[in-house]
């Protein structure tokens, strides 16, 4: 049987990739995608621990995380559209004024 470290390590790798992506990308949509990546990495860790401890709680957290991700996508993309309408760009560095 696989040791749990395999899954946790995979989770850590994906999380780091996501974190790096959030920092290095300039396109807002890609940044949001990278955040999803990080959330997914966390999900994997949750499920792994839930499975190895035989406890449902971890799986439930994944459920909640998915809810949060859905909410984040809805609001985030709403913001993206708003920014794009006013700025004609999706570069985060351009969207540096609080007032749209």
């Amino acid at each position: 049987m696989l040791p749990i470290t395999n899954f946790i390590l995979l989770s850590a790798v994906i999380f780091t990739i996501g974190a790096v992506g959030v920092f290095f990308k300039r396109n807002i949509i890609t940044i949001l995608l990278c955040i999803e990546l990080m959330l997914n990495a966390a999900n994997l860790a949750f499920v792994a621990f839930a499975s190895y401890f035989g406890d449902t709680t971890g799986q439930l957290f994944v459920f909640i995380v998915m809810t949060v991700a859905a909410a984040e996508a809805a609001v985030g993309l709403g913001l993206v559209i708003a920014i794009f309408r006013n700025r004609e760009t999706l570069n985060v560095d351009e969207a540096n004024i609080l007032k749209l």
Partner: protein
Amino acid sequence: MNTTTLLGGIIFAPLIGALVLGLFGKRMNERTVGLIASATVGVSFVLAIIAFTTLLGVAPEGAEGIRRLHNPLFPWIEVGSFKAPFDLVLDPLSALYVVFVTGVGFLIHIFATGYMHGEGGYYRFFCYMNLFMFNMLVLILGSNMLVMFVGWEGVGLCSYLLIGFYFQQQGPAFPNQSAKKAFIVNRIGDVAFAIAIMLVFMKAGSIEFAAVNEWARSLTAAEPMTVAAFGLGGASTIALLMFIGATGKSAQIPLFVWLPDAMAGPTPVSALIHAATMVTAGVYMVARTSEVFVKAPSAMFVVATIGALTALGAATIGLAQWDIKKVLAYSTVSQLGYMFLACGVGAFGAGVFHVVTHAFFKALLFLGSGSVILGMHHEQDMRKMGGLRKFMPITHATMAVGWLAICGFPLLSGFFSKDEILYQTFTTNAFANPVFGKIFWGIGALTAILTAVYMTRLMVLTFWTKERWHDDHGHDHGHADHADDGHGHHGLAKGETPHESPWSMTLPLIVLAIAAAVGGYVGVPNGLGHLVGIENSNMVEHFLEPSVAHVGSHGAVAGHGVEAAAPVAHDATLELGLTAFSILLALGGIGVGFWIFRKNPLLKLPKILEDKWRVDELYEATIIHPIRKLSESILWKAVDVRSIDGLVNAVADGIRGLGGTMRYLQSGLTRSYVAVILLGAACLVGYFLVQGYVK
């Protein structure tokens, strides 16, 4: 514990009715609305009867031998050891209440379909009425104090909505003002009740009625009968707080002022809520927790005193009122005082019995007055009535039954219950000094005479003397003083005569008249029963025995209910003597009433009585006015404006200043934020690593 789902049906039938009417009633015609409203309450009534008979077949359980039906609905609030499930329980006390509440409620609903004919907001009225029935039944059937509190507040809300039913009318003494008054006065009592619930949980560890009574029983001895007992936070304090709650709901001194004003609502509301059912909730609560009261003689003394004073005071006011509904309202307050007097001297069974008989005859009287008001085209002033016997024979006959019943005319229902209360008061040993019992009996007897007098006055003025419909007399008191039923035009026009009401109104009157006449035979006092050869004829008290505590004439002070359940020898001579005396009182009162008002129906009584002892003015001067002044000068101008606003503004200024400096951190560059977050995360991970390494 016997589990059933019947009780859920009893409470939910009216709720469904209220929901249907509230949501869709606007599009229904009157027939459908009336049908739905009456039918749902009818269903409740039938289910209540079934539940009652089921209960009779249930084996008694526990040391107290209480029969119980239990219907758990859902777990409601659970915090730590505090549990308040939404459960319903039927025991003898609640069974009796449920049956008469649904029964009387059903009749009044039928009456109202006729009475409210053609009113605006017909469906709204019945939606509230059904909602009221739901809440009242929750109040009665709730298995713990919090569920009861839900019903308690619910009936308060419905009462508010229904008193203010004609909210369009504007003015200082008009329905919306009365509704607000009722609501606010009730809140005072509710606060006390809420505190009592908390205190009970603290002391007894549970708010289930069964557990609370168990706790009270387990107290070894009653607390001493002193004023200091209230400060101990024990049974006396709890009992007193609950009683304050009861004074609010049941209109006792000092919180009785809302009930007469509540007559601004439609008459069926007055009959159902402000005479028969809701106002007896206080008595119900006291009886429910009677074990606690038994352990607190000083609280019992307060209850009896307040009850007796209320009974007497309200009766005197009732003597001088001109508005037919006001007379009945003060009569209700007075009779409620009687019930509390009974509870205060430890005769809880007699008190509850009086609740039942009173529900019959008072509902009958109110409905009769409604019939009169409708027949007189919304005229409520008795000075403009008279001679109605010819025109409204059925109303007259049924009201006469109610009149005799409330006066305590022999062999009618009021006679039995009132007689029982007076006898129990006379022989009580709930108090250290038996003289108290005799004093209370004296007040009760005086009240009984006064009751007979003012009720006779009402009948004489309304039905028997010459017709005064078109007299100009009586307009001097102005319209503002008298709550009419929402019609710009009221009173009879020239040439009109009063008319009898439709069958939908007279039928409930007849049924109630029969109930008021024979309803007392379920509780014939044991002495009288003995006289005609029937032992233990007081079936009601026998039925209630397990579920209320016993003290006073039946057993030692603070005796356990079990001991009291044993048969006790009666002092038959004393009881029969007192019975004979109360017959004399009733007949005497009726006679006096005839003698005075027959000749001189418009006799003016002392102004202070007509002005209701000026209690409202007293409250205005001593409580409301000072509070208003205090709020204005100190709370508003000093505390709110200076301190609170000042504090808030200071905080706001400080934060603005801080923000002014901090804003330079907000570059607006998302990625710099991300970098900081990343740095922070890395620092955290590093910290934990180092810490782990050090370990």
